[in-house]
């Protein structure tokens, strides 16, 4: 019984923790501009993150080594440092975006200007990282994030024409007012939003934090295999909501307030309450994850002592680096830069930096010195190679497309 409860909790947390500001914004932007013609990308991205998270989780559980230790060991210091710089920069952008997201959602709930919420949100993030136990932190934000299910509920309440929706999904085409270039650009953005590297850093380091071993592999596989696809459905319903309400009105999403309007349209004030709680929980949870990930990547690259399971004084540089990250995030937001814009860039940069993180994990997941008998199976490797190609193509195409489309404008 207790075990079953654990499995259920794990799945629910995986669903609630799947969506972050990147998914919220990117899916809403795409839904409002391209309808459902890019849903297939979310599916590709979700399968990718399942594959990737499952491998890195398995490596961490079997060998006790988290992702960035593996990256440094395999790529060596030079390529490893390049990866660290890129990943850390993207992480910092994402921390900034998530804290901004918390503040924007709180503004929608309170009408107090979001810049005033930013220090509050950042201090709250730090306090949780400083004091709260890892498992409590993950479960509370994950479960509260589940209220985002309201997006799916709203889709039903909006009473769409299901036949035409299915048609758009199954026979995707570029809408006439958009170019093939911006279509491709947003395809990469959606892919990056689903496969953000920080999720993998966090997932594998979390496995070490929670002292997973070989016996926990089944549980982790269920969490990923069930939780992530359901989380992906949430992402898709955000896009459907935007496609149903905003696209016909000629609105293209540029702010978080537009993201919630379809929910209010379908589910009224109660729906609004749910969606605001959900957004605060999801972005707050993701702010925790990204802040921790900045600490994890640095500590693992340089071999510092890390982990929330240690007293802060026993992982001093780890905690100091996270404090610095939060301060930098506050500083960036204080310039008045639009968090939604930061989000849109961060997901594309995520796609660019992905190969350097993905490749070492794919390789080590095949190395018996680390994995003993738990190396990748043939099917996983075949899929892994397909995704290596997809990830490389997305990474190489991202910057040219960004230039051609003027970042999708």
């Amino acid at each position, binding site marked *: 019984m207790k075990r079953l409860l654990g499995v259920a909790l794990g799945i629910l947390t995986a669903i609630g923790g799947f969506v972050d500001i990147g998914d919220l914004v990117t899916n809403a932007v795409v839904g409002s501009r391209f309808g459902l013609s890019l849903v297939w990308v979310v599916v590709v991205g979700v399968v990718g993150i399942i594959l990737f998270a499952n491998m890195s989780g398995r490596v961490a559980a079997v060998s006790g080594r988290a992702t960035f230790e593996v990256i440094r060991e*395999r*790529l*060596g210091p*030079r*390529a490893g*440092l*390049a*990866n*660290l*710089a*890129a990943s850390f*920069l993207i992480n910092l952008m994402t921390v900034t975006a998530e804290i901004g997201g918390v503040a924007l959602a709180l*503004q*929608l*709930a*309170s*009408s107090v200007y979001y810049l005033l919420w930013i220090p509050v949100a950042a201090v709250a993030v730090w306090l949780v990282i400083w004091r709260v136990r890892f498992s409590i932190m993950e479960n509370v934000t994950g479960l509260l994030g589940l209220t985002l299910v309201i997006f799916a509920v709203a889709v039903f309440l909006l009473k769409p024409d299901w036949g035409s929706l299915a048609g758009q999904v199954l026979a995707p085409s570029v809408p006439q007012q958009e170019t093939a270039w911006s279509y491709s650009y947003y395809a990469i953005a959606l892919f990056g939003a689903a496969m953000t590297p920080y999720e993998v850093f966090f997932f594998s380091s979390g496995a070490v934090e929670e002292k997973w071993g070989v016996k926990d592999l089944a549980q982790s596989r269920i969490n990923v295999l069930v939780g992530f696809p359901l989380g992906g459905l949430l992402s898709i319903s955000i896009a459907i909501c935007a496609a149903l*309400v*905003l696209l016909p*009105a*000629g*609105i*293209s999403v*540029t*702010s*978080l*307030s*537009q993201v*919630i*309007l379809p929910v*209010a*349209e379908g589910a*009224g*004030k109660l729906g*609004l309450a749910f969606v*605001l709680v959900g957004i605060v929980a999801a972005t707050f949870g993701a702010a925790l994850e990204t802040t921790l990930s900045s600490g994890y990547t640095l500590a693992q690259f340089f071999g510092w002592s890390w982990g929330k399971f240690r007293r802060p004084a026993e992982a001093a540089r780890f905690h100091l680096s996270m404090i610095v990250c939060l301060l930098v995030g506050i500083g960036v937001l204080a310039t008045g830069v639009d968090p939604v814009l930061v989000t849109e860039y961060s997901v594309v*940069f995520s796609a*660019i*930096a992905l*190969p*350097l993180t993905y*490749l*070492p994990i794919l390789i080590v997941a095949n190395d018996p010195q680390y994995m003993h008998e738990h190396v990748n199976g043939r099917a996983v490797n075949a899929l892994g190679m397909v995704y290596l190609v997809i990830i*490389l193509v997305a*990474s*190489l195409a991202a*910057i040219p497309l*960004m*230039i051609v489309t*003027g*970042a999708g*404008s």
Partner: protein
Amino acid sequence: MLNTPAWAPAAKGRAHGAAGFAILAVAALAFLTGCSGGTGQSVSTAVKDSSSAVATARIALRQDMEGKLTRAAASTTLDDELKEVHTSRSTVLKLSPASQEDRDLQKQALDVLDQCAAGFATARAALATSDGGSPSLSDGDKALAGAQDALKQLEGKVGDK
């Protein structure tokens, strides 16, 4: 091997991927902010952005009237969209049109965007005095609808060119 330093020879003093990435990112951003089309292009973008903003505001007002949106969410939405209109307006304002035709277009666009801003002012005032005083929410919606029509006309005009 393209951008995978992992497979490249690790000879001393090779280009460092980290620096390369940063330079590329900065260059891309510089390019993005630096590039801009002619007056027609910029006006067209500004008009599109603003009509998206006005449409959003109208949805928010309607939802507020129907009791679907809280006051806080409605007023935040209006603030966000007003900001969008402001951004568009200052883009158009900063243009330096070369021909008489472009100067006329700029002038027209500024007039319409001012009308939008005025519409937003009415709508926000309506939200603030929602105890039945004036302006009422429907006044606000009317003002925004007027702005929306003007935007549409201008959009058609820019699109024709």
